[in-house]
């Protein structure tokens, strides 16, 4: 799409999908994303959906260069297994992948797996997890004794060539999440608050990525028409969201909900899809000029990685490409 920033799409998830056509939808969406110039595509993980590594393999097999951004939650596998999966994909396909390290998840998912680890302790565990993966990827023999994991003289075979070493992202909006991302050298991925928050806290955005949906058209009216048609009010979705709010310990979830109360129904920063449980990320909605200006603002604040929502169709990428191009032009002119 544009140089110097990384843009990821998001792969469709299997919950509620039509099983016979799900795989084809994953492939189709990956191809759209690749054609649009995306670096990669995020593949979710949670208890209710198919395994992200297998989806990643499918994506790689049906695209030429798109890099899966695989969500990795420590509770699902030992760090050695995660490193082995990354190494295996590199070996089989010669394709780089990215890892999106996740400390939390749905409260019910964690409870079902008997994981009662408190929020900040989950980040301490994730730091150990990432350290083991990183050292295995560095090559050589790894010994590590931590609070959560221990390995002795462990080696990763096959080794991963330097150019295929996975990129490391880490989800987390809390202080402990951001601190862990910094300590691990990972790009911190947050669900962004409104732009004004970034203007007031520019230092927090070094090596930051954001997850955001975009609906932009040449005229704002057309963008809003599309937005409302795509995300109509849904009481079941609202109930799901409100119940999740009651049990979630995620900082981002509470921050976005707070932001939702402070924003009007049609400000460019739009949270109706979030409030109706259609997606977790905020949307930027409006004319090309308005949305490009918002994106440029986030870029000025230090955001270099953007993870878009699941694309609705191929044409949506054309509009998104326009706003990113304009945002980059704005930055070039102001520089």
């Amino acid at each position, binding site marked *: 799409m544009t140089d110097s920033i990384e843009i990821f799409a998001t792969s469709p998830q299997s919950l509620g999908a039509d099983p016979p056509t799900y795989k084809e939808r994953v492939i189709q969406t990956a191809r759209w994303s690749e054609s649009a110039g995306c670096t990669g595509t995020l593949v979710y993980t949670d208890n209710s959906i198919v395994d992200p590594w297998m989806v990643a393999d499918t994506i790689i097999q049906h695209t030429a260069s798109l890099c899966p951004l695989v969500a990795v939650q420590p509770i699902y596998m030992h760090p050695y297994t995660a490193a082995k999966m990354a190494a295996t994909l590199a070996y089989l396909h010669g394709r780089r992948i990215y890892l999106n390290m996740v400390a939390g998840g749905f409260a*019910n998912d964690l409870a079902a797996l008997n994981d009662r680890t408190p929020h900040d302790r989950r980040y301490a565990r994730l730091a150990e997890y990432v350290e083991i993966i990183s050292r295995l990827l560095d090559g050589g023999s790894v010994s590590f004794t931590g609070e959560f994991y221990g390995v002795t003289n462990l080696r990763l075979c096959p080794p991963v060539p330097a150019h295929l070493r996975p990129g490391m992202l880490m989800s987390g909006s809390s202080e402990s999440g951001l601190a862990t991302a910094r300590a691990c050298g990972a790009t911190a991925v947050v669900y962004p608050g409104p732009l004004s928050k970034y203007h007031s806290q520019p230092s927090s955005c070094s090596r930051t990525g954001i997850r955001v949906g975009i609906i932009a058209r040449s005229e704002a009216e057309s963008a809003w028409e599309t937005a409302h048609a795509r995300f109509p009010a849904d009481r*079941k979705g609202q*109930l*799901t969201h409100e*119940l*999740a*709010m*009651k*049990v979630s310990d995620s900082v981002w979830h509470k921050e976005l909900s707070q932001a939702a109360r402070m924003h009007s129904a049609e400000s460019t920063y739009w949270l109706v899809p979030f409030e109706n449980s259609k997606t977790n990320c905020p949307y930027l909605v409006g004319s090309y000029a308005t949305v490009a200006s918002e994106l440029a603002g986030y870029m000025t604040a230090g955001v270099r990685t953007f993870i878009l929502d699941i694309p609705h169709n191929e044409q949506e990428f054309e509009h998104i490409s326009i706003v990113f191009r304009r945002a980059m032009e704005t930055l070039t002119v102001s520089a």
Partner: protein
Amino acid sequence: MTHSTPTSAWIIRLTKIFSERLLIRIESPDTDLLDSGILDSMKLVELLFTIEQEFGIRLPIADLDIESFRSVSRLAGLVDRFNVMSEVPTAT
């Protein structure tokens, strides 16, 4: 003004909702619906949505304690609290 609490009638209607709409048989109005796993998150949403439809009420989830959903008895209390404008239900 006093308002009668027809909890037992609400319990009968709620039990019927469980059996007919959610296809869940509830042994007792005091059965723990949450810890027993009878209501997972999706079924809880379905239940609350159905309650809102059936009783014509809007539940302010953000202001409610999760304990309000723990049993049919407690749900009946919830319905009673937000259904003050409705007529006393008929236990059928």
